[in-house]
């Protein structure tokens, strides 16, 4: 193809992501997005005008060299493109799927000022999938062994990215995981239809091949404490235990049978494979032909409600106390949910769960809200409308309004400093805690955030840990 001028490039429309038809996919757990073909990827890559001063990179928490990898895609050098991404991002197949690119790199794309931005996320995903499907994930070169040992607590996105960097720097890395499977929220939280578990497993396997030692079934704090890790010969510890105790609404009837936290509902379905019961032993509420309400407006709420649709829900509702404008979930997730037949009930706040005499949920009392002045979050505050209470018949409820922090590390490592919510306080450039040799990152520091922010924290911590280890000779 002859070299295109920027003007010509600007004329190419943003390439659509092929996806499973919504009527089909609402009945299965297969991935919704199907990924670019080579043709689509090349065409999309051509839309990048290779700005001399690219702004997209500044939007990426891990600083992927976006222009460089896209230009390799345009040349058909997909494997080289994969290498380029991996200089900065160890888990591109995951990030290409679950990063909110529209708020990060793509929102800063210069092309996007006049037209739609370059589909950076879709290209990243294409490149990672191409590599995995054609040659397998290739291991980068490792530096010579330093003899230093690092313990990483938690195998979610922060832990995995930190482990990937540190092992490349030549350190011995052990990752401890409380659950029996590795991947943290990537495994128990994000559903198969958004992030196939095979992809997470492949990424974990590639780290294992690099020499990362994974120890599942280990709750640091309950078996070894952070102090014991340090005295047992680990030179540094990175705490990446993720979000903790789910918040509930604290309304009457919340302990009726059929009321779940999003964490429990998603863990049963994703990690424990309850959707394959009785082939798998873990059951979950029989959603088929029932009315399901999910409370909350974030990505987790979307994951839960779309999961319930796939389990056969008759009516699946999102109930949110503000309006669609304030909803924090990704636009793509909301769009997909609507296509799949999810009903959105805005400006409604639950007051009380209602149940049968034998204790099963059968309804929720809601109150209509109106929006007032912006609150501390900058979003317009919902205000109850007196006398607007009404009852919605539901059989199962999922509460998806966020998580507090897990108390186990705090109880067993009291000499770190914590916020009043139990989040660990760190230096945000180095992820250093108040304790020598101990670093922390991901949701245990920020509270519930995104996969890529956690990965960014993991990488920052890896750099700081490397420096700490090199200086501590």
């Amino acid at each position, binding site marked *: 193809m002859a070299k295109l001028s920027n003007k010509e490039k600007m004329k190419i429309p943003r390439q659509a992501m092929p996806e499973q038809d919504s009527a089909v996919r609402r009945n299965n757990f297969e991935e919704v997005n199907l990924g670019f073909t080579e043709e689509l990827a090349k065409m999309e890559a051509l839309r990048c005008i290779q700005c001399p001063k690219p702004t997209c990179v500044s939007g990426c928490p891990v600083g992927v060299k976006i222009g460089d990898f896209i230009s390799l895609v345009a040349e058909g050098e997909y494997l080289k493109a994969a290498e380029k991404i991996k200089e900065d991002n160890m888990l591109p197949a995951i990030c290409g799927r679950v990063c909110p690119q529209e708020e990060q790199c793509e929102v800063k794309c210069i092309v996007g000022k006049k037209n739609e931005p370059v589909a950076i996320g879709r290209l990243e995903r294409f490149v990672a999938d191409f590599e995995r499907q054609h040659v397998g994930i290739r291991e980068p070169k490792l530096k010579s062994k330093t003899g230093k040992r690092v313990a990483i607590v938690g195998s979610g996105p922060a832990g995995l990215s930190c482990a990937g960097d540190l092992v490349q720097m030549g350190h011995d890395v052990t990752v401890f995981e409380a659950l029996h499977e590795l991947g943290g929220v990537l495994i128990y939280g994000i559903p198969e239809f958004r992030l196939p578990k095979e992809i997470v497993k492949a990424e974990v396997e590639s780290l294992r091949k690099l020499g990362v030692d994974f120890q599942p079934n*280990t709750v640091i704090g309950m078996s070894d404490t952070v102090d014991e890790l340090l005295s047992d010969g680990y030179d540094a510890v990175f705490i990446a235990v993720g979000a903790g105790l789910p918040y509930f609404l604290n309304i009457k009837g919340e302990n009726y049978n059929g009321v779940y936290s999003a964490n429990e509902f998603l863990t049963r379905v994703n990690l424990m494979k309850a959707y394959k019961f009785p082939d798998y032993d873990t059951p979950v509420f029989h959603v088929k032909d029932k009315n399901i309400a999910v409370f909350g407006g974030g990505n987790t709420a979307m994951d839960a409600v779309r999961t319930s649709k796939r389990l056969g829900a008759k009516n699946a509702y999102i109930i949110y106390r503000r309006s669609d404008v304030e909803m924090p979930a990704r636009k793509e997730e909301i769009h997909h949910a609507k296509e799949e037949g999810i009903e959105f009930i805005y400006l409604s706040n639950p007051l009380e769960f209602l149940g049968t005499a034998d204790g099963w949920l059968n309804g929720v009392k809601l109150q209509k809200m109106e929006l007032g002045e912006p609150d501390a979050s900058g979003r317009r505050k919902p205000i109850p409308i007196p006398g607007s209470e009404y009852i919605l018949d539901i059989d199962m409820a999922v509460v998806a309004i966020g998580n507090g922090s897990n108390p186990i590390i705090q109880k067993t490592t009291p000499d770190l400093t914590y916020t009043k919510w139990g989040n660990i306080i760190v230096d945000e450039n180095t992820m250093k805690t108040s304790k020598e040799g101990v670093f922390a990152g991901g949701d245990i520091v920020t509270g519930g955030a995104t996969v890529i922010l956690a990965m960014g924290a993991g990488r920052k911590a890896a750099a700081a840990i490397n420096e700490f280890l090199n200086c501590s000779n």
Partner: protein
Amino acid sequence: MYKIVSAEFIAPNVKKFIIEAPKIARKRQAGQFVIIRVNDNGERIPLTISDANINEGTITIIVQGIGKTTKELNDLESGEYIHDLVGPLGKPSHIEKFGTAISIGGGVGTAIAYPTAVALKQAGNYTISIIGGRSKDFVILEDEMNKVCDEVFVTTDDGSYGYPGFVTTKLQELIDAKRKIDLVLAIGPIPMMKAVAEVTRKYKIKTVVSLNPIMVDGTGMCGGCRATVDNKTVFVCVDGPEFDAHKVDFETLERRNRTYREDERLALETHTCKSETAVLKTANEL
């Protein structure tokens, strides 16, 4: 994978396992539990650590085969492996010198009451235990309790052994005999714990129960094990499992434990069918 060092039935359907788990053996304290998964398709179930041997690096769990998972577990023999085992989890029992402490174990609950009785004795308490069972065969750990407790009473519902009646009958007798009682720990089926709580409530005797809700992760992440205590929601896995018996809402606990009753029945049927097919197959092969 976690190796089973020994496995023996100690009562009908009740099997005692000694499992290699050196780290847990070293760390566990009375009242704590592990979560087990029997195989790759298995569910996660909590089981209290009954005993541990630091030198051997082993822990003891005692399992009553009721549902599919516990029956599958009880099919395992010495030399075989448990797929996943994580712990110790939960808060340890609150142990101090109370004075006179009574540990009450109903059925397999005795396996859970035992380690706390040991800890109470070690803390200098005059320790009494009341062990109940449906009949003689269902009374477990009598010898072990005899070794650590100052007094042991056995009760059976059908009177086939020890004192005829329920554990609460014996407890009421001790109260009526004006015995000084500073702490009661009751572990067993929910109706039994509730009955003990009702007996001691009248006399304002401090009473602790260990709750057994359905759990998934066991580290506070899912909230499936929430119970109502003192009109507040608690997460049993990280806030418990032991709570003030006089403040526990047993009805809610019992009801929530029934959430998957139909599924449990279905899973068990599948398991039983498979076992029967296996037996049939073996019979045909012979």
